[in-house]
C-alpha cells in the first residue's frame, strides 16, 4: 500500500484513524496530479514518478507534519484510561439496561399489546425472554470486541484493552426480571447484579450459565489480541 509507513507512524503516534485514511487518500491523489504534471513536462514514466515523489516530501516529513497537529489525535490515544477503563462498564450497563427495559416492557405488556395489535401474546413473551437472554450474554462480549477493535485500529499497547476487559469481567452486569401477571394483579420486577462468578461446583455453572457464557465470549477477543500480538512480534 502506498504511504503505508506514513500511515503506521501516524497510527502509532496517536493520530485518529479517519484522519490517517483521508491523509493517505489525499497524498495518493496529490501524487497522481504531480506525476501527471511531470509527464506533461516531458519526463518519462519513471522519472516523472521519482520527481513527483520528491516534490511531495519524504515519509518522515509527511508523518511529522501530521504529528505536529495535536488536535488530530484520537480519544483512545489521548485518554486511554477513560476510553478503556472508566467508560466501558458504565456504557455497557447503561446501554444493556436501556435495551433490557424496552424488551422487558414488551414481554410484561404482551397482553396489552395483543389487545391492540394482531401479535400473539405467547410469541411476544418468547421474543422478550430470548432478547433479554441475548442482552445478558452478549453485552459484555460486544463491548470487549469494541475495545479490541479500538486498540488495534490505533496500534495501542494491548494492556489497555486487556485492563478494560478484565474490569468488565469483574463488573459484568447481569439483569434479571419477572413478568407481572395481569389476571392475578402481580407486578413485574427488574433486577441488576454485578460481579464475577468463579465456579467451584457444576451447579454454579448451570445456575449462572448466562454469566459464564458471557465471560467466555468476552475472553475470545482478548485471546485473539494476545495471539495476534505474538504472531506479529
Amino acid at each position, binding site marked *: 500500500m502506498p504511504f503505508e509507513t506514513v500511515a503506521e507512524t501516524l497510527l502509532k503516534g496517536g493520530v485518529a484513524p479517519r484522519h490517517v485514511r483521508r491523509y493517505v487518500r489525499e497524498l495518493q*491523489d496529490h501524487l497522481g496530479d504531480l506525476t501527471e504534471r511531470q509527464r506533461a513536462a516531458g519526463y518519462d514514466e519513471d522519472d516523472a514518478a521519482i520527481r513527483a515523489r520528491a516534490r511531495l516530501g519524504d515519509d518522515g516529513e*509527511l508523518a511529522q507534519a501530521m504529528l505536529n497537529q495535536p488536535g488530530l489525535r484520537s480519544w483512545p490515544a489521548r485518554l486511554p484510561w477513560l476510553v478503556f477503563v472508566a467508560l466501558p462498564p458504565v456504557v455497557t450497563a447503561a446501554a444493556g439496561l436501556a435495551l433490557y427495559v424496552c424488551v422487558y416492557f414488551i414481554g410484561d405488556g404482551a397482553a396489552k399489546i395483543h389487545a391492540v395489535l394482531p401479535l400473539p401474546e405467547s410469541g411476544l413473551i418468547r421474543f422478550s425472554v430470548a432478547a433479554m437472554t441475548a442482552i445478558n450474554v452478549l453485552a459484555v462480549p460486544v463491548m470487549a470486541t469494541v475495545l479490541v477493535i479500538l486498540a488495534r485500529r490505533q496500534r495501542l499497547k494491548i494492556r489497555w484493552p486487556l485492563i478494560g476487559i478484565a474490569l468488565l469481567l469483574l463488573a459484568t452486569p447481569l439483569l434479571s426480571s419477572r413478568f407481572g401477571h395481569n389476571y392475578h394483579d402481580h407486578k413485574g420486577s427488574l433486577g441488576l447484579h454485578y460481579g464475577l462468578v468463579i465456579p467451584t461446583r457444576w451447579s454454579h455453572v448451570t445456575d449462572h450459565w448466562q454469566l459464564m457464557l458471557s465471560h467466555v465470549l468476552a475472553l475470545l477477543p482478548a485471546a485473539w489480541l494476545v495471539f495476534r500480538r505474538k504472531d506479529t512480534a
Partner: protein
Amino acid sequence: MANDNPGFMAGIPELMILRLLQDAEMYGYEIVQAISARTRAVVAPGEGVVYPVLHALEKDGALKSRRKTVNGRSRVYYTLTAKGAKRLSALTDHWTALNGAVQAVFGMAMQAAHAV
C-alpha cells in the same frame, strides 16, 4: 514550505490557505499550486504537508470539506466557514501589524545607513 527557518514560517501556511479559500473552494493540490504561483515560488510548500494544516483547520471549524468528483476523479474540496473568516481577519490584522513593525525596523536601518 521551502524555507530554512520553519519557526519564522509558523502561521504563514494557515494564513495563506484561509486567504485562498476565501475566494474559492479548492482541493489540496490546487491550494499548493496557487500558493506557489502567487508567491512566485518564494513560499513553495513541501507539497504533502499542506494537508495536516487543512485537517487541523477543519477540526477547529475554520474550514469544511466535501468529497466531489470532477473529471472522473474524486477529491476533497475545502471551503471557508464563518469561523474561518473571523480567524482570517484576526490573522490578517496580526500579520499586518507584524509586517509594519518589520518595515519600520528596516526603515530605521536604511536611514542609519544613509546618515553614515
